[in-house]
């Protein structure tokens, strides 16, 4: 089974999160994820992108330069791995309410948030019921 990788690089602006959400929906569909799982992935990718976009906005507010976020999707058999990262130097701050963590954790199988590196890694496997 070969891995397939898709990369998306978009301006770090909220309106481009939609593109990442659409992309993950399309890829999840290729792997025959169910409607509920596709919704989960859209939520997860939207959330991860928002985190990075916000972090980026804080980082670039002083310099005035518009940053980008990179989203890498890796398809392996019945599994989808998504990595979202910002420009070098982007740091994800600890969140007070932790709502994002709660959401991410609920909709994918595995979440790794590397705050210092400004990177979020998500992994979700297709449920066996439709296979």
């Amino acid at each position, binding site marked *: 089974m070969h891995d397939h990788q898709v990369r998306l690089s978009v301006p770090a602006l909220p309106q481009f999160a939609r593109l990442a959400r659409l992309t993950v929906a399309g890829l999840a569909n290729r792997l*025959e994820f169910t409607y509920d799982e596709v919704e989960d992935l859209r939520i997860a990718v939207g959330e991860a992108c928002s985190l990075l976009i916000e972090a980026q906005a804080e980082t670039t507010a002083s310099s005035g330069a518009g940053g980008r976020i990179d989203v890498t999707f890796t398809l392996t058999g019945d599994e989808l791995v998504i990595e979202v990262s910002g420009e070098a130097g982007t740091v994800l701050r600890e969140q007070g309410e932790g709502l994002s963590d709660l959401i991410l954790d609920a909709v994918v199988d595995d979440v790794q948030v590397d705050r210092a590196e400004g990177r979020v890694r998500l992994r979700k496997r297709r449920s066996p019921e439709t296979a």
Partner: protein
Amino acid sequence: MSLGDEERGRLRERFQDYARTRDRAIRDELIEAHLRLAEHLARRFVNRGVPIDDLVQVASLGLLKAVERFEPERGLEFSTFATPTIVGELKRHFRDKGWSVRVPRRVQEMHVEVNALVGELTQQLGRSPTINELAARARTSEEEVLEAMEAAQAYRSTSIDAPAVAAEDERGIANQLGDEDVNLLDSENRLLVSELLTGLPKRERLMLQLRFYEGMTQSQIADRLGISQMHVSRLLAKSLAMLRERLEGSDHP
């Protein structure tokens, strides 16, 4: 749309009758007599992606409010009084719905259809359907289904973290969920509930946490997660059903 003098005079009397008696039959008659005004105003809002039938419905609601609030003794023409009320109702519809000018009608209609089909197919299959199954049932492509799913979020992406103002229909949703929800928050039940929560699948647990612990409304959850309120409602119903099942299971081991 202008009415004849005779008709206008007759309606003025009927408005006075209604102001005095608050008789529903008179109210309905007055609404009926002014439906053309509502339709006329609704037409101003076509080509914004909302079907004309829906617009007329919304305008009629505005008309109803105008009829109820109209005070004939002030001497104002009803149409003068009603127009801002109806237009206000239409504008609010666009704002609340979040349907933007730019979502093509085709996608919106597909969004509604997909939402309905998900419920149907989930029940039939006993599991969440695949996109392919949804597309086959809707006689469309998988891409169209995916686009329709994203349409729920399309124009809210700029305010992912801004909680939406509670929709007016929240009361209706509370009713729909039933009394159990209130009881969930009783202190003596809280411990039991949180114990039961830990056993739930993560997605279902999240919905209950957001709804009852974070105190978010269904539309706030939908906005926050970028999914349709219908999906939130479905997941909540499922979560509550699971919770109930567990609760009954623990009562009768």
